[in-house]
């Protein structure tokens, strides 16, 4: 008999239509995102410019259209009472320490839901139309369609027909259980009912959204199945938090690449002194170059059943990739009860250093050491990570140049994974606290 690894967890409710998704429904008269309603509907449209990364070289300050629209529409949904709780009523703080983990106390996110069994040993699973998916979401939860306008400038239309006639529209919808203000879901080609699986075109769309937002504080994230995605319908998450994430400040070590590989301008580094081992992809002559390299790496991981998380940071210029094994350890009973009791699900945001805690005691006692301890459980072992890295490199067409690597690792010494002691800032701080 086939062995099946599962964990029990409280599913995250991302839509108000999730709870009744299992009930049989005769017809549909409620403006959903399914075939019955969407093609005949009008929805706001955000058309991004042909080259969303263009402004990054320019000095224009007037490129915040996407963030402006997103925050306006999001606040509108808040005023309409579509969220399950007011996320701004959740306490938040930066934990003292070198990395500056951000902790949030969210006591309401998981209330009133029974734990459900999730299979965690299959990163790719076929789309199941019987389960909740985003075609069942009501249109009031959608902020706008997000399409390439093929022009020099971006624009927004409040009321536009579904323009993509030849294919399903990409939509941006609210997450009704937000973990920060502005938390949304980007659902590529919603009507195509794609399973949670990265492909180059969809991944490029996520990068285009980050570039179009033009703010380092607007980030996108992706969780594969087995790495704490709860819905098997292709989606990225995104939100706005004007604090740097610890992983963005973490030191990296560049992996030397052969000259031939360097042609597309993409560089790859390894995170050092961070609790979760991960790769950082940067640069690229075009967004497509970066999207192709990273999506090839993701495709290898999902095809080979390695759960992973992705953070799209720095306006789409910097991508963090974390293969992980927490859910597998959890299913095998290898995670301590102490950690399980916190009920923290280490998905992309937690791994990046924004940690949502469910119990007040965990929040009040949160320290760099406790955050480190949790995240260290997520990481692959050094040996397994190097093995996976080698596979990723060959899948993404990256060739490491050997001689330089030896030289570099000498200088670097052995990488140690432990919290760094807190040292005072090199320069004295001014007084900043609200007087």
């Amino acid at each position: 008999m086939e062995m099946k690894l599962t964990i029990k967890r409280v599913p995250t409710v991302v839509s108000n239509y999730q709870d009744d998704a299992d009930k049989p429904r005769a017809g549909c008269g409620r403006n959903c995102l399914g075939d019955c309603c969407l093609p005949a509907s009008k929805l706001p449209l955000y058309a991004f410019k042909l080259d969303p990364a263009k402004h990054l070289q320019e000095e224009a300050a007037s490129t915040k259209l996407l963030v402006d629209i997103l925050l306006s529409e999001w606040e509108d949904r808040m005023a309409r009472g579509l969220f399950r709780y007011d996320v701004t009523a959740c306490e938040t703080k930066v934990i003292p320490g070198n990395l500056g983990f951000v902790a949030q106390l969210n006591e309401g996110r998981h209330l009133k839901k029974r734990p459900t069994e999730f299979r965690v040993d299959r990163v790719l699973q076929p789309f199941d139309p019987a389960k909740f998916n985003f075609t069942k979401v009501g249109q009031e939860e959608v902020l706008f369609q997000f399409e390439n306008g093929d022009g020099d400038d971006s624009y927004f239309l409040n009321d536009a027909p579904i323009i993509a006639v030849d294919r399903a529209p990409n939509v941006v919808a609210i997450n009704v259980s937000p973990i920060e203000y502005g938390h949304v879901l980007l659902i590529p080609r919603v009507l195509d009912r794609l399973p949670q699986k990265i492909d180059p075109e969809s991944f490029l769309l996520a990068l285009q959204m980050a570039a179009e937002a033009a703010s380092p504080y607007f980030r996108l994230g992706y969780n594969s199945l087995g790495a704490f995605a709860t819905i098997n319908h292709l989606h990225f998450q995104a939100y706005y938090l004007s604090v740097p994430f610890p992983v963005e400040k973490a030191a990296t070590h560049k992996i030397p690449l052969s000259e031939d590989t360097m042609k597309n301008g993409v560089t790859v580094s390894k995170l050092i002194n961070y609790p979760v081992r991960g790769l950082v992809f940067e640069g690229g002559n075009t967004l497509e170059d970066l999207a192709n390299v990273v999506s090839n790496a993701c495709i290898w991981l999902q095809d080979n059943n390695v759960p992973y998380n992705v953070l799209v940071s720095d306006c789409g210029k910097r991508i963090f990739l974390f293969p992980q094994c927490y859910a597998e350890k959890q299913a095998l009973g290898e995670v301590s009860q102490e950690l399980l009791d916190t009920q923290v699900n280490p998905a992309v945001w937690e791994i990046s250093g924004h940690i949502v805690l469910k119990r007040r005691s965990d929040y009040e006692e949160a320290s760099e050491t406790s955050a480190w301890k949790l995240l260290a459980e997520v990481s692959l072992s050094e040996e397994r990570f190097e093995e996976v890295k080698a596979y990723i490199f060959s899948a993404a067409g990256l060739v490491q140049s050997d001689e330089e690597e030896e030289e570099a690792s000498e200088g670097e010494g052995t990488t140690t994974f432990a919290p760094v002691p807190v040292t005072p800032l090199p320069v004295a701080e001014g007084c900043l606290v609200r007087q």
Partner: protein
Amino acid sequence: MATSGAPGPDDHDHDHGHGRLASSLTARYSDWVLEALDELPGSFLLTDPALPGHPIVYASGGLAALTGYAPRDVLGRNARLFQGAATDRAAVAGVREAVRTHRAHQAALLNYRRDGAPHWVLLHLAPVFHARDGTLLHFLAVQVPIAPAAATRGATCHAPGPLLAACRDEARVREDLPCATHAGKVFVDMDKRGLEAEEPRVASDREKEMATSTANNIVSALNRYSKLTGLVVSSKRCCSIGIPALSSSLNLSLGRIKQSFVLTDSRLPDMPIIYASDAFTSLTGYSREEILGCNCKVLNGPGTSLEVLEEINQHICSEQACTVDLLSYRKDGSSYCDLLHVSPIRDASGKVAFHIWVHLDMGAKHDFNGLAPEVWLLGAVGAVRVAVRGCQASTMTA
């Protein structure tokens, strides 16, 4: 530009733009401040965080020698122009964080010269505050070239100690062409470097000290010239008096919001106004000095509906948001149809700290980015929530 048709005020018109950049300094110090800065040694620049895009408003002659960019090449641009493909993004994130929280910061960065050649510099970033009310005026960025590790090791044996280096810098102020000697030294260093530039470098204590003392010299020069205009600047932010001030970084984030709005302090008696946006002052005719400390009822007049005011009150008491139509009055007594949205704003502890009052004159023409007016109004609320949450989360670490 996005949907809005009209070009922004800072577009295209170069002379106008550069005049505005210069006045960022001359308006605050004196007309002679530029000459005084020109005489200071070292590679440095000043940026104005209150202008759109946070542009460079002053660049020293030493910067031209170090980077190959003449002052006219960089004025009006954001200082990120020195970064390039191999610049460490984590180091940039550190600098960005210092800018956001208005802190002094030193970081080793791989920057790029105008000809594309990479070079290592120690960036010393320091905020310059108005000494009396603590407003942030400028950022000062000093760039000191970092010598390769081997050269540094050699140098520390013979070089004068940090204290001496600082004295020498002071002495240079009195030299006729101080930049020339400094630049000459830089070029010698540059030639030796060549291809090893991409190897990470760590700044020596001497380089750090040099950056700090150069920065201190510049701040004292600014201070000398600021006294002429009655403004005293300081590298330390001091506390303001009277109405509790918002942190300078929060003030700055709020300054970027286009809508007409005020913030009132929900914890003080009579909920005084503690922030008013530029659009609000131009809509109502009240200056910021006049309106701060007042209650929002100053906008009421004989035609203002008491029922609607009561409705607002009830929503405030129950910590709910509301949007209402109201007749409001400007300072000159004229009235306008006001689409008013009032919403509680919670701080990082989750408690209601402020109320935002967003006003829209329904009779005036506006560019709503394609949104419905009542949704466009809410953009200010979202932006304030994001600013308050971000600023407070990080300042509560201390």
